[in-house]
């Protein structure tokens, strides 16, 4: 079920009314009902994959208990759990990629073998719920949380409908404590949830869904277009993917609020970042934190244990640890997004820029001191923010291309003499550009807030608030693209 579909518009009020009017006084009933609703929500797409989801959740529940019981003896159950989760993910998402890459490698050295690829559908949300499962068993192994004996709580924490399809990756360590307390109706939380949903719908339907017509055309016909048009296409793709995923996250977090849950923030206005590290603290926060805690830090820890010297090849050990950790983490982050070399290059590019940023930190500080410029100088902040934005835009070209060579050709064509000509707007409406400007302005004005329609601490007259809600709603009706476009991150 899509958040922007008619089915969801019917599903949500029914679940909401039953939850707050019928099962609101009993914690067990609340959780059981939410679990049933979550399974209905997921099974609506394809009930066969619901069985996979239930199987994985039950496996992780059992493994959690076994890890808790036998943790001190060995890692057997942890490894089994990781193999089940990662094995499922690899089978459905990466099997064909790995097999065809292997076949290509073999054929490049002169041998030919038959490619035993399989024809399988990628289960919706698999990358997200396997990561939830991994964090559950790893956290139990690391003693961060206790294995939960309440099966409903565990199953629900691994399949809660607002987050099951595309996050945020709300770890069970954060969700289960909320499931243990009865949710009471809180007017402020619920109305804030409604506002966040409204803004999410605006972001998705008005901004993100109006852009594919133009950006798809640019990325398809890049060889015939002038540089400036390609640049505009790349910038607008950056806006599109942000609006698509941030819009989705706002709807997901807002929906969870309607049921009394507080989820982690997933986006914090990332395009207003002055450097690439800040960008990654603001973009897909739940995923970045997941990779930091379950990939980067364990790698950095194990590397640091192996290197005893202060310097290796005259390079400080800290740098070496950071570089190894970052390369491996971003290789996997890229691969998580999709089974294609374009995603791997995208991830490695981000890793590369993070390393560059890390290395230049000290010289930059010295340089600023030398020219007596403040770190918060508006000119410096602006220049750095623009540079960061363009670095991100360049990496999105790899992300949205079908092949690596296509991405390089796109960039080559873009960085040409025609880069300074007037871009062709093609299918792009001027109204869409104006809406993007308004959208970014509002986000800039509200950049310190949880979301762009967050008003709780502002004493705003009721009439004005309602005028804002109605304006946003009518902007959706008037300018929205109502074609039930899937969220981009569903593909991951």
């Amino acid at each position, binding site marked *: 079920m899509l958040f922007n579909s008619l089915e969801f518009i019917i599903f949500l009020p029914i679940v909401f009314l039953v939850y707050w009017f019928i099962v609101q006084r009993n914690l067990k009933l609340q959780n059981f009902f939410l679990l049933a609703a979550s399974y209905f929500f997921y099974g609506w797409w394809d009930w066969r994959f619901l069985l996979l989801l239930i199987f994985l959740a039950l496996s992780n529940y059992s493994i959690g208990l076994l890890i808790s019981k036998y943790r001190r003896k060995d890692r057997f159950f942890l490894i089994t759990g990781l193999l089940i989760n990662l094995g499922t993910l690899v089978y459905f998402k990466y099997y064909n990629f790995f097999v065809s890459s292997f076949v290509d490698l073999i054929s490049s050295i002169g041998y030919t073998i038959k490619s035993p690829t399989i024809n399988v559908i990628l289960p919706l949300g698999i990358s997200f719920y396997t990561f939830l499962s991994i964090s559950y068993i790893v956290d139990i192994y690391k003693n961060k949380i206790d294995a939960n004996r309440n099966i409903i709580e565990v199953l629900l924490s691994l399949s809660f409908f607002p987050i099951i399809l595309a996050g945020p990756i709300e770890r069970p360590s954060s969700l289960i404590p909320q499931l243990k307390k009865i949710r009471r*109706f809180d*007017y402020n939380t619920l*109305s804030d949830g409604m506002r966040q949903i409204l803004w999410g719908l605006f972001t998705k339907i008005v901004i993100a869904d109006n852009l594919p017509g133009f950006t798809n055309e640019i990325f398809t016909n890049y060889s015939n277009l002038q540089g400036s048009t390609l640049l505009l296409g790349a910038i607008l793709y950056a806006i599109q993917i942000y609006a698509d995923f941030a819009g989705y996250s706002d709807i997901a977090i807002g929906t969870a609020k309607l049921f009394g849950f507080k989820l982690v923030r997933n986006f914090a206005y990332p395009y207003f970042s002055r450097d690439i590290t800040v960008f990654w603290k603001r973009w897909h926060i739940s995923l970045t934190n997941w990779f930091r805690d379950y990939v980067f830090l364990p790698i950095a820890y194990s590397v640091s244990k192996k290197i005893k010297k202060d310097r290796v090849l005259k390079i400080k050990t800290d740098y070496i640890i950071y570089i190894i950790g970052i390369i491996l983490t971003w290789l996997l982050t890229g691969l998580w997004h999709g089974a294609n070399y374009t995603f791997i290059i995208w991830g490695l590019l981000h890793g590369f820029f993070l390393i560059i940023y890390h290395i230049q930190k000290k010289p930059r500080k010295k340089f600023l001191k030398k020219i007596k410029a403040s770190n918060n100088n508006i000119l410096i902040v602006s220049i750095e923010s623009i540079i960061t934005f363009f670095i991100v835009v360049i990496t999105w070209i790899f992300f949205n291309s079908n092949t690596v060579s296509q991405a390089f050709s796109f960039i080559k064509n873009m960085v040409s003499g025609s880069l300074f000509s007037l871009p062709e707007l093609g299918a792009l409406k001027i109204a869409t550009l104006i809406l993007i400007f308004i959208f970014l302005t509002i986000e800039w004005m509200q950049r310190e807030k949880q979301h762009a329609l967050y008003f709780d601490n502002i004493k705003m007259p009721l009439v004005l608030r*309602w005028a804002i809600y*109605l304006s946003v*709603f009518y902007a959706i*009706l008037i300018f929205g693209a*109502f074609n039930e476009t899937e969220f981009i991150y569903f593909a991951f």
Partner: protein
Amino acid sequence: MRLFIIKILLFITVIVSVNQVILFVAPYWWGNNMLREKMPYFYENQDKYNTVFLGSSRIFRHVIPNTFDSFVNKRGYDMRSFNLGTAGAANPETFYILRKLLKQENLLINTIFVEIVHNMPIDDINYHTSRVVYNMDIESLISSYRIHRDSKFIKEKLHKRLFVTFAERLMLISYMQDLISAIFDKPSENEYTVNDGYLKKSSVSAREAFLKNPKVLDRRIKRIKQNFKKLKSSKEYYNQSYLDYIKDLQILAKEKNVELIFVLTPRNHNRDCFFTFQHIDSNKKIDLNSVNKYPKFYSEKYTYDVGHLNHKGAKLFSKVLAQEYVKMKRRERKKKEKD
């Protein structure tokens, strides 16, 4: 909790009310881009016409008002017609336009030819588009539902679509852009109005598809012949709701002194409307569907694609329709004289 629910309901009420005001301001044909050009032209030039044709593309592409008018005029009938047919119009849409026309004050026309078309309430291609504006009207919605419910020949039940469309109408989800442009944009005079509403079929893809597989016409002819065969053996079948709605429209037309003439067009193989047409309680019916009686309408010479005639065929159709109309009028005159 109560306050939260009240505020949500209030918000929805405000939106629905504002939407009703917008719909009230909009012309009733706003969802159909062909009618958005034809209707303003027709109303502006209403004094020029006394007859209109309503129906699907088999009216829009087949009735040449000029040919029709000159034939009947020569035989002493003053007819100045305009073609309000539109492509892809099933009966809910045709009847919606007819009802709105008939309910209008100071209607200058005195004859309306209405094609009896198939019952599909909302085709796949029109679902979630403003083309289904006709199902946004409660009366039209209820009749569509009943007709669709009683149909024995539509395998796919599409009731859900009717109510989804109606709910979308309340919130105006996905229709607002068309609605605004229908209210504010001035319709351009173009090909839809040049020949009094007639436009010859010119879709290259439809023609190519037919030329690739011309046997589809044989299959359609076979189906229509089967309809006629079955008619002899199963005369009892009809769609009562369809007939009831037609009856209501006949009463409305009578009140307005408008002559309502029902037409069954060639190439229409839909059984629901074919059988129902036979049961319409009226002498004012013209059946041009028969393959045996009108073989030329099914010959390749007059074919554009499987469902439509070419321009030559349209000329022939307009002439035959005019002939049948004249015959019908003469029969009526004779009957009156006898009485």
